[in-house]
């Protein structure tokens, strides 16, 4: 065997005075880092396998453990950093395409952090959200430019189908298969309690979860997993997945070994067969073709469900969105390049696509310029991290946001970024029964409800501060934003002034 060039990234530091050798860490670690040495009566650690998921640290009853990033360094320089060198070692070892999970860890600019929110002083009084009426409800779907009534004031116009949300936040698409049954249950229950929606992703819908249909968005991707008439009619809306922020231009591939009995049932494919969902929909080569898929779905659901088209934020996103708005879609969902994923080629994740903030500003402006902004709602995702990001996104023109990574963090994810190994110690990105049951859907859904309710409250506080009492009045209200430390070009794309102006 050749030498392994890669030094373990983490050190397992065990405080021997505190350790009572209960072996909880050994039982908790699916990466088999910890073991007990009978002969010397001590715990040992295979550090090279540790991914710093913090499970053992959290569960250690005596706080005897900590995981620290090793300070052993290669002789790195500004150009050749340790990570860069290790990736070369890995590929030289295996000849493989590098595969990673979760959003890109690279240090690209985060424009949400360069945008500041306004508040009223003196002239336009703030509103106290605890005691005064404040509307966080939103409707997603095509809005009519005018309403027609007959002589008895009865509405003649047919209102296009809408998704009604109690607050402008939804859980983004994560398929059953990429995440566990208990993670899906947690999301479905929380969405129902919050009056929002979660999204099945492209893995079909578990029979047990049909009861949450009114709060479910069902997804249709190129592989059409689990798609059938009942599925299409089960949800509040249908989302066509054209792309994903973490891997624009790349499709999905769930290896056969992750397709066990239950996953096979929801995907409607045999056990153990690879689920391949390539990036191209081979029936869609144009906006006209997209229109065809949209209307075949509308026909199959008698025009009762809004259709969402989800794309990744890429360079020409504004022009693409303009085409989608004309294709008959009711909602466009745009996923920024910092968005999470269960598995993506590292190079794609870290180099392809653009930040959601820029994509959103460009799309909203383009649709306004072309006077078709009311024809579609815009939902954005791709690393919305807190309620301030939500407020900024809405002021930049979004109707609502999708949160994925933040929702998983609420469920216990510690961002170890190894979802693709299928050994998630927190019971989220895994199908191993013993691991899945670590996530209790009662607790999981409660934590999600807590998180989103807290955000909603914060959103109302920020809106109140601006003297705004509804999401509708905040939407596209770029006057409420100022840039800090941005170039003139960046400010121009965002359509906002610099702080101090």
């Amino acid at each position, binding site marked *: 065997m050749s030498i392994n060039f890669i030094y373990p990234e983490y050190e397992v530091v065990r405080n021997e005075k505190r350790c009572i050798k209960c072996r909880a860490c050994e039982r908790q670690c699916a990466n088999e880092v910890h073991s007990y040495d009978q002969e010397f009566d001590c715990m040992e650690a295979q550090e090279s396998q540790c991914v710093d998921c913090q499970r053992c640290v959290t569960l250690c009853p005596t706080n005897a453990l900590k995981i620290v990033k090793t300070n052993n360094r290669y002789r790195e320089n500004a150009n050749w950093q340790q990570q860069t060198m290790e990736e070369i070692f890995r590929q030289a070892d295996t000849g493989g395409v*590098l595969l990673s999970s979760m959003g890109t860890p690279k240090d690209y600019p985060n424009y949400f952090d360069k945008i500041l929110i306004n508040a009223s002083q003196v002239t336009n009084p703030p509103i106290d959200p605890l005691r005064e009426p404040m509307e966080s409800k939103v409707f997603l779907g095509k809005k009519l430019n005018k309403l027609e009534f007959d002589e008895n004031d009865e509405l003649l116009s047919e209102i296009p189908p809408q998704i009604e949300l109690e607050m402008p936040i939804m859980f983004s698409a994560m398929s059953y298969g990429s995440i566990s049954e208990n993670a899906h249950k947690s999301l479905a229950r929380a969405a129902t309690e919050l009056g929002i929606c979660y999204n099945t992703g492209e893995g079909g819908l578990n029979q047990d979860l049909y009861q949450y249909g009114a709060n479910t968005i069902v997804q249709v991707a190129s592989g*059409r997993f689990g*798609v*059938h008439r009942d599925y299409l009619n089960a949800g509040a809306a249908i989302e066509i997945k054209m792309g994903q922020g973490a891997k624009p231009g790349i499709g999905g591939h769930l290896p056969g070994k992750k397709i066990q009995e239950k996953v096979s049932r929801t995907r409607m*494919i045999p056990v153990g067969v690879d*689920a391949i969902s390539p990036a191209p929909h081979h029936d869609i080569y144009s906006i006209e073709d997209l229109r065809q898929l949209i209307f*075949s779905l509308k*026909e199959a659901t008698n025009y009762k469900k809004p259709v969402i088209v989800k794309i990744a934020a890429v360079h020409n996103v504004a022009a693409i969105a303009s085409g989608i708005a004309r294709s008959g879609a009711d909602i466009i969902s745009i996923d920024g390049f910092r968005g999470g994923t269960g598995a993506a080629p590292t190079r794609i994740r870290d180099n392809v696509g653009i930040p959601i903030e820029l994509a959103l500003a460009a799309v909203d402006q383009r649709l306004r310029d072309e006077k078709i902004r009311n024809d579609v709602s815009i939902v954005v995702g791709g690393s919305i991290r807190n309620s301030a990001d939500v407020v900024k996104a809405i002021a930049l023109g979004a109707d609502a946001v999708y949160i994925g990574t933040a929702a998983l963090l609420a469920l216990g994810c510690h961002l170890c970024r190894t979802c693709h190994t299928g050994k998630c110690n927190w019971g989220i990105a895994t199908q191993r029964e013993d691991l899945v049951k670590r996530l209790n859907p009662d607790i999981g859904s409660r934590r999600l409800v807590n998180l989103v309710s807290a955000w909603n409250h914060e959103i109302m506080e920020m809106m109140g501060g601006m003297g705004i009492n509804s999401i509708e009045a905040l939407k596209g209200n770029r006057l409420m934003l100022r840039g800090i430390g941005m170039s003139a070009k960046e400010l121009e794309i965002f359509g906002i002034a610099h702080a101090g102006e």
Partner: protein
Amino acid sequence: MIIEGKDIYFADLNKAIKQADASEVTVNNIIGQRYIGSGVQGKNLILHGTPGNALGAYLDNCNITVYGNVQDAVGDTMNNGEIIVHGNGGDTLGYAMRGGVIYVKGNGGYRVGIHMKEYQENKPVLVVGGRVGSFLGEYQAGGILVVLGLGVDNSFPTGNYCGTGMHGGVMYIRSDVPPQNPLPHLLIRECAREDLTEIQPFIKNYCSYFNILEADIFNKPFYKITPGGGNHYNTIYAHN
């Protein structure tokens, strides 16, 4: 019940079909209206003319007979039922179908049977009488694709890249010559008559629907194509 298909907008036509209070609906003079049969339940549709794209999409509990040619994406994600086409089919015929049977008397276009998959008791079958374009059975994950190559002599009746990405299911191709340049991940062998029992009933139906002698089908060899073992997707990645 009979509906006149000329000069009627697709949405109105489909609405009329869905609302028709009859188990059998005939539509005459169809001029390219799309999505016919999508979302229709418990009906037999007899169609004269040329239905447009996505005929029978998500088909469930419904049968369709077409006297004419059909266009693209026929039977997209169909769940069960039967589609019989007395003419030619277009591209992505039977896209992701998971159950039911499609019979096309004549030829098929590009990417016929793409993403076809089977599930539990559902095993889709697609029979094309003539030849098909390139990428037959692309990403095929299950089900049976049959290409009879009627009227094609001395050439394999599929285009290039037959079975690319195929990882399940089976194809039976009738041809007097073996495939040229077959893709390396496929297993291809000439069948003996007893290997054809699986498709016998479908060939019988094909012959009776389109008035063709069964003997004229079995006068040439069939090649059976299945994906080879080994999963090359799992070996191309390095965890990072």
